[in-house]
């Protein structure tokens, strides 16, 4: 599904990612863990195509195609979704308007007709039920005045509406209390499927108790330092990132 080869990324003239190799198969859940400043968010923004994240070397293959030169909206309609660490507030634009614009952009790309208002509302009702999202949250402006938990639930709602082939979850646990975390994790778990891959980016092991990954990678100093199964996360929880900081300094 996603194959990253020798990825070097520069932001504002500073090289942040220094040769990442990562392969994610269909239906797999990968977790990337790492200390602050290791390049975790840079990786997620680069996959989603944010301006200013310049790929100087290497490639990102999505469904076999190099997407490095694609605009963010092209990547999105092709099936890449980034759940933001800090979802953006957009006053004056209703959440439903936003969801409908996004869904219809994706549908048009797939050669499907736009959903009409009735079809859209019916579809949305189904999706919001499990996430405990009130009607009021749909009518309000996108993320405006939402609590941290509401914002993250709104990200998961968008993911469930857009049905991406690859979802990148950037620090989805940050700012959530344990109850909110459970709701969000349940939402993500429900979206796991054999044809949907996920890449979860997190600083803390806590999230992995609720969303259990198939593989865990440690990112430090702009490189993947170690890869393993979920037991690697337990080890990090015990020992912290100190040894990787040392490896980084040595490198």
């Amino acid at each position, binding site marked *: 599904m996603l194959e990253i080869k020798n990825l070097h990324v520069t932001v504002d003239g500073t090289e942040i990612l220094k040769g990442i190799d990562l392969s994610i198969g269909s239906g797999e859940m990968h977790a990337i863990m790492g200390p602050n400043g290791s390049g975790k968010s840079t990786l997620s923004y680069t996959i*989603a*195509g*944010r*301006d200013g994240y310049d790929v100087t070397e290497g490639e990102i293959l999505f469904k076999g195609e190099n997407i490095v030169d694609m*605009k*963010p*909206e092209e*990547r*999105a*309609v092709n099936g890449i*979704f*980034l759940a*933001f660490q800090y*979802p*953006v507030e*957009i*006053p*004056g*634009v209703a959440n439903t*308007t*936003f969801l*409908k*614009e*996004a869904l*219809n*952009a*994706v549908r048009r*790309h797939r050669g499907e007709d*736009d959903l009409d*208002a009735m079809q859209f509302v019916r579809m949305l009702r189904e999706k919001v039920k499990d996430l405990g999202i009130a009607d009021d949250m749909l009518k309000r*402006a996108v993320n405006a005045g939402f609590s941290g938990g509401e914002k993250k639930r709104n990200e998961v709602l*968008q993911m469930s509406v*857009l049905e991406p082939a690859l979802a990148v979850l950037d620090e989805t646990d940050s700012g959530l209390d344990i109850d909110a975390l459970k709701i969000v994790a349940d939402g993500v778990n429900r979206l796991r499927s054999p044809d949907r891959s996920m890449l979860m980016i997190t600083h803390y092991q806590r999230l992995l108790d609720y969303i259990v990954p198939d593989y865990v990678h440690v990112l430090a100093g702009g490189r993947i330092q170690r890869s393993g199964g979920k037991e690697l996360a337990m080890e990090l929880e015990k020992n912290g990132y100190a040894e990787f900081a040392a490896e980084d300094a040595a490198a």
Partner: protein
Amino acid sequence: MSTQNEQPLPFTGILDQSPGTLPGADLDWMRDLRTRGYARYVEQGMPTVGEEAWKYTHLKTLEDTVFRLAGEDDATQAVDSLPSIFGGVRLVFVNGIYRADLSTEDDLPTGATLESFAATATRDANWLQSQLDSSSGDALVSLNTAAMRDGYVLHVGKNTAVAAPIEVVFVGGVSDDPIAVFTRNVIAMDEGSEAQLVIHRCSAGDAPSFSNNVTSVSLGQNAKISVTTLQEENDTATTFSSTHVNAVRDSVFQSLALSAGGQLSRTEQHVELNGEGAHCQLDGTYLVRGSSHCDHTTRVDHLVPNTTSNEMFKGVLDDAARAVFQGKIIVHPDAQHTDGRMLNKTMLLSDKAEIDSKPELEIYADDVKCAHGATSGQIDETALFYLQSRGIPEAKARNLLVQSFLGEVIERIDNETLREAITEKIVSWLPGGDMGGDNS
């Protein structure tokens, strides 16, 4: 700048030949008013960028172009289409002069009159005299007093409410050569009266035009008026509009200016809050591109205790457009418990666009609540990326963010039909002209 003083003062050649054809020429007081206005204009001279109030707005057109005064013949021009939002009462002026054949005046409730300035000058000259303030104003207001020809006069009697919004349309630029239009408008709201007014300023031709519009508004106790001005003239138009409001006890003046046209426009509002409980809300949204220049200048005087004012101006500038916001709130010594607020925010879509924003507070009372602020910035790149990352194309995402930015002002419009009409105007101004989708 140095050449300014060497040029003759615009309009002096035309106006000093005693304009006997202007309305009210047979009235002594009117002739006297015009003569004094003219003398003051000559004494004051054209405003220059050397003056504080005109520091950011240069009336270059008046230096470069020789305008003649619009006359009766200019009013008879054919006009293809006229704007209408509500389809109700509508007064139409072509090149500044009333056109009965294009206007619809029925449906006003008893107690309310709406007619042209020229008509009032004939029908009730004494009342009109009482409504025209001759004592104040800068040079362009003096010039207006000297040359005023026509305009609208709205008088709503005691405890009369005009439920349906009234529309007034000024169609300009309908000429082959540069013409100047001087309108004088009067809004008189007696005690307990209420009305809504929508003013359209638009062009039906390409000739350079200069229009100078002065409006006086007097609000009786507990009266309420809402005035929305939609400035959509073409880019050969230069427009100066100055509104002077006197608000007594518990009266409300509410205004919204949408400025989306003209080569140069300056919209001035001067509000005197003269009675306890008086309130004014001055809002504006400006959409400027090309090399156009758009100026909003406000002055609110809090003269007595317990008055409130609230101003919000938000605009979007593209290309090499320039906008000016000058807002002044003056809290006089007696005006305790004043609550005055003023906000100006501008979104710049181009590196060459420029905003000059000058919000000012002058406070001479010690127990007041006042706040002012001004910001300018570009489209939030993170928000843009957020929308794009959901599949929304960049151009549409930019438009959504501009709408989002202006939404704060638009939400303050009470009338839903008007709010939707203005939203449509904003959408049609945006690059691409529409959202390309259903926004319901």
